[in-house]
């Protein structure tokens, strides 16, 4: 009785977990670091997104500094260099060596294609990734900007 129950539980447990295997669904870090010299459409693109259809540029207004609120301006352009508004933008802070992030950031539109990112807190020294995710044509594209603070 219990053995059957355990088998059913194990099956449900396994099947619910296997569909999102990191081994089968992941990206390699080398693909996410902006290469610059591999940009196919706009040589002035500072940070190409993963699928290289969109370009972002960031300009730090304050920071990056430790334990204070930082902010930067972000410009989003398409492959022809024109500014445009993605349907959603998310900026996440992440410490890859420590396996944790920070508090959620705040993104607000300034004008078309230009955004202000606030509430950026680096809570400790170390290696940080600023992960930018854009939703363009119902597809999420992202880029990771690594640096050491």
């Amino acid at each position, binding site marked *: 009785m*219990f*053995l059957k129950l355990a088998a059913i539980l194990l099956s449900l*447990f396994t099947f619910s*977990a296997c569909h999102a*295997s990191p081994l089968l669904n*992941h*990206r*390699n*870090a080398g693909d996410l670091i902006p290469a610059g010299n591999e940009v196919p459409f706009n040589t002035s693109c500072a940070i190409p997104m993963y699928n290289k259809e969109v370009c972002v540029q960031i300009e730090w207004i304050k920071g990056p500094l430790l334990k204070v609120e930082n902010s930067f301006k972000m410009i989003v352009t398409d492959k022809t260099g024109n500014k445009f508004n993605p349907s959603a933008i998310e900026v996440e802070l992440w410490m890859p060596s*420590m396996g944790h992030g920070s508090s959620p950031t705040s993104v607000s539109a300034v004008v078309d294609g230009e955004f202000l990112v606030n509430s950026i807190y680096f809570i400790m020294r170390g290696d940080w990734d600023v992960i930018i995710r854009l939703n363009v044509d119902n597809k999420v594209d992202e880029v990771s900007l690594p640096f050491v603070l």
Partner: protein
Amino acid sequence: MKILLFAFALILNSNLVWAAACCGSSVTFPSLITTEEPLKFSVSINSSRTIGDAPTRGIPIFREEKDQNTRQSISVASAMRFEQSQYSVAGSYYDQNGGSGDLSLGYAHDFASETDVFTGFPNAYGLMQITAPTGRSIYELDTNEIDTVTGKGLWSLSTGAHFLGRRYKLDYSVSPMMTAHQTRSFDEKTVSQDLSGSLTIGSGYSITGKYRVGAALSSVYGGAKTIRETSRAETKSRSSLVWPVTLQFSTFPTMKWGWTLAYTDETLVGPVRNTTLSRSISVSTLFRNF
């Protein structure tokens, strides 16, 4: 044969502490005696390699070879039985610039005599464990000295249960655990963490009475952390989730000694979020004093 099967199951359960090289979530499980001996002692050598990172949203990112860090540690654990009560202690030591890790004290109540009378029903154990943050945590770092981290940083109290059954040469176990963390202040910050929990399901098969192969799947949930800085109000991270899979091979040449080779992989099943992803291998030996 009955004792041998339980001995194998015991080895399986002597090794249920898996952690990422640095700060990933881990299964917290006290050392436990499931056979008749009054005392057991185990030593485990573990090598863990951080393969990738799972952000809070989006798919995991696997690191380049040069960024994958490896750490070795040695763990010791002992448990003593006094009738139906068991008391245990466990600690670890990390290589390189590490040092001693967190120290855990455990208590287990053996409900085996009550549950064993029902045919086909597993033996049940109630578990409790206190972990003292004797290791060095990430909150105590001034620079990026990630190799020196050896502990979680917070006092924690874990409670749960362990159900262990057998049928012919097959053994199986289910282990739910829940952990509460105490808020702790460091130099310029106060750290607190929401409730964490884990569920482990394992099974094994005994071969010729001397060898056993086993596998276990865990779901480990780490509660969100809140960090209050003196310079600002509050920083709150999201919760973490990881699914370690463990494959084990054990041998028990005598009734007193046992060996286990275990491989744990956190990259096989998901979803995963807000954690590092590691692969580790460990060799354990177990001594039981009858």
